[in-house]
């Protein structure tokens, strides 16, 4: 069925197979050191605040079920959202793909006469490559999130969905500010507090004078037409409050049926993402409030490959993602290669299942190799606040990649290389598995549930017993040891 629905465009897939891109990133020891430090810091913080909630598993079950319900009722909920937001004074637009979304937003900015906009960090606008489109139209977009600002100043690409500059350490950030900010204070140190202060000064005047802001949204409430943005720095509040015009670009899957559902997600998201009980600021707005905040409010709902993803009964759970980034923070593959190797705005385990589905699993490029960029250790599933069974979808997409590849030996070699890279160092791999597994045996579970009789290609090519089913009692690691 997915064949008949158009796939997405924008920054979702790069030209290079994953292993080729990964090899380049693996040659950067500083990058690996930075990633190791940051991902381990955040993992520990997350574990601490999650352990504090005795009902964490119940919240995950509720979150997962709410998202399943949203997907099943998506057309109806979108219509409800549109009606509620419109009644509250917002204008709702729809965009089939990245190009159309950029066109709509560019047109809205042009209408205001502004040639400058401030932006709140948003995955959707990165996905559609909005900044590039605005620039082509002569409009300067300034990213206001500290990490986004760092990445933008250095003409780089984000490498993590929550902390886009996770690949830089503090002294690299100091250097970027000193060289490229223009108004960086003399004698800037690499003290995080000092760096944050420099960003504050740099952006302050822009915040106070900007006429147009562009945001995304973490959640959109169908019942009330409300949009929700979680953030830390206050740059979000600045953008959502001070300008006259606010344009929010929102993926259709961001809906929640009712306002009360936020009580689940406002507990799941901050603890899973920054490892805090609550992020410093959460803003919610419903259309226009006279005398308070932007009076010209637009919402652009985008498809861009989401309907094609929804068509896959196994893969559609990827649309439940609330972009917390917990899965990348625990992923042994992400920790080693970083975000750039995935060549999509969505890196890590979620990227490995979301990007190929949004763009379609083709026979060339990164999209067909991404599902192999995993050890199937299951750590991502264990931490996912909405219980997306990432290993299950990976296995499913591997089978799809096999189908796309049938009769194309060069593609098979490419995927074998991806697998070989992941599994290359058995000791390291075993260590990663031991560290990451938290009690579940996802691969075995997946295989049992999905009634897969043999190991998914190309692992099947690696073992003499390729027709033997995986014994349910044996862990993947034990199986691997025994058969190697």
């Amino acid at each position, binding site marked *: *069925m997915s064949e008949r629905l158009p796939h997405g465009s924008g920054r979702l897939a790069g030209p290079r197979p994953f292993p080729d891109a990964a090899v380049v990133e693996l040659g950067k020891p500083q990058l690996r050191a930075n990633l190791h430090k940051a991902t381990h810091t955040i993992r520990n913080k997350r574990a601490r605040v999650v352990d504090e909630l005795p009902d964490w598993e119940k*919240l995950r079950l509720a979150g997962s079920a709410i998202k*399943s*319900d949203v997907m099943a009722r998506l*057309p109806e909920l979108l*219509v409800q959202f549109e009606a509620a937001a419109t009644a509250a004074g917002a204008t709702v637009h729809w965009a089939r793909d990245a190009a159309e979304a950029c066109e709509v937003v560019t047109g809205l900015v042009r209408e205001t006469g502004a040639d400058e906009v401030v932006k709140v960090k948003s995955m959707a606008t990165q996905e559609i490559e909005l900044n590039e489109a605005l620039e082509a139209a002569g409009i300067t977009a300034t990213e206001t999130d500290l990490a986004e600002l760092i990445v933008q100043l250095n003409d780089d690409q984000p490498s993590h969905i929550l902390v886009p500059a996770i690949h830089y350490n503090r002294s690299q950030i100091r250097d970027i500010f000193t060289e490229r900010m223009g108004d960086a204070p003399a004698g800037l140190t690499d003290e995080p507090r000092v760096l944050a202060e420099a960003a504050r000064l740099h952006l302050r005047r822009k915040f106070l004078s900007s006429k147009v802001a562009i945001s995304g949204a973490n959640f959109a409430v169908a019942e009330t037409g409300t949009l929700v943005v979680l953030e830390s720095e206050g740059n979000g509040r600045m953008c959502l409050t001070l300008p006259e015009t606010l344009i929010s670009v929102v993926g259709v899957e961001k809906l929640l049926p009712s306002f*009360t559902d936020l009580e689940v997600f*406002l507990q799941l998201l901050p603890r899973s993402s920054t490892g805090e*009980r609550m992020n*410093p600021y959460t803003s919610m707005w419903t259309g226009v409030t006279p005398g308070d905040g932007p009076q010209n409010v637009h919402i652009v709902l985008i498809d861009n490959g989401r309907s094609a993803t929804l068509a896959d009964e196994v893969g559609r759970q990827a649309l439940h993602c609330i972009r917390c980034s917990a899965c990348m923070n625990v992923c042994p593959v992400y920790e080693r290669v970083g975000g750039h190797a995935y060549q999509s705005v969505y890196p890590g385990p979620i990227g490995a299942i979301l990007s190929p589905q949004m763009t379609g699993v083709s026979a060339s490029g990164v999209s067909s190799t991404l599902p192999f960029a995993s050890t199937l250790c299951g750590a991502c599933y264990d931490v996912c606040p909405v219980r997306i069974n990432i290993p299950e979808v990976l296995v499913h997409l591997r089978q799809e990649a096999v189908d796309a590849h049938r009769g194309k030996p060069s593609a098979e070699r490419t995927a074998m290389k991806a697998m070989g890279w992941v599994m290359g160092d058995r000791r390291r791999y075993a260590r990663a598995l031991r560290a990451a597994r938290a009690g579940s045996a996802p691969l075995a579970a997946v295989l049992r549930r999905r009634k897969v009789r043999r190991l998914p290609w190309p692992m099947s090519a690696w073992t003499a017993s390729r027709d033997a089913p995986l014994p349910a009692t044996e862990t993947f690691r034990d199986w691997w040891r025994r058969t190697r």
Partner: protein
Amino acid sequence: MNARDEILARLRTALGPTPSAPPVPRDYRVDDDLDDAARLETFVDRLVDYKAEVTRCTPDTLAEAVGAALAGVERLVVPGDVPEGWLSAYPGTAVADGPQPLTVSDLDDADAVLTGCAVAAALTGTIVLDGGAGQGRRALTLVPDHHVCVVTADQVVGGVPAAIRRLAPTRPLTFISGPSATSDIELNRVEGVHGPRRLHVIIVES
């Protein structure tokens, strides 16, 4: 077909004729099991953890507590409907927002802002503003670098679910958990970026 109708049609095609989803289990905690005193203790603990300043007082000592929190503040902005009694021990100039709204540069010139709140969640140390009584519009609590917020004990509930259930969804809502902060540099929380760098919460218990 226009974009709206085409997207809706695509989604219907994707879902097939009979999409269904299991019922949502809602057996998570909605209320805490803390008594009033323990709940306030928890609230204070969480606020301090975020590096917010906290003062506890009674209705009788509130003005004094506000005065102390605003020590050194020369220019204060307040919402038009701030309760007069809050300011009786404050010696500086309090500028009210409204009926003529203050400009952004007025707000930028202010040293601090004083408001109340709509509800507070103890377990996460969160204050929620909804633009209601004693809170003013959103820009007021955003631009000045120092936010002093008065919370009465009866406004403090347990966790996020209890807070959400007390709120009117269509008001402009701001959930505040500590001063502005960033985790963008090596994933360590650093207080003080664009929002108020100082948050001072005054808890009034009768």
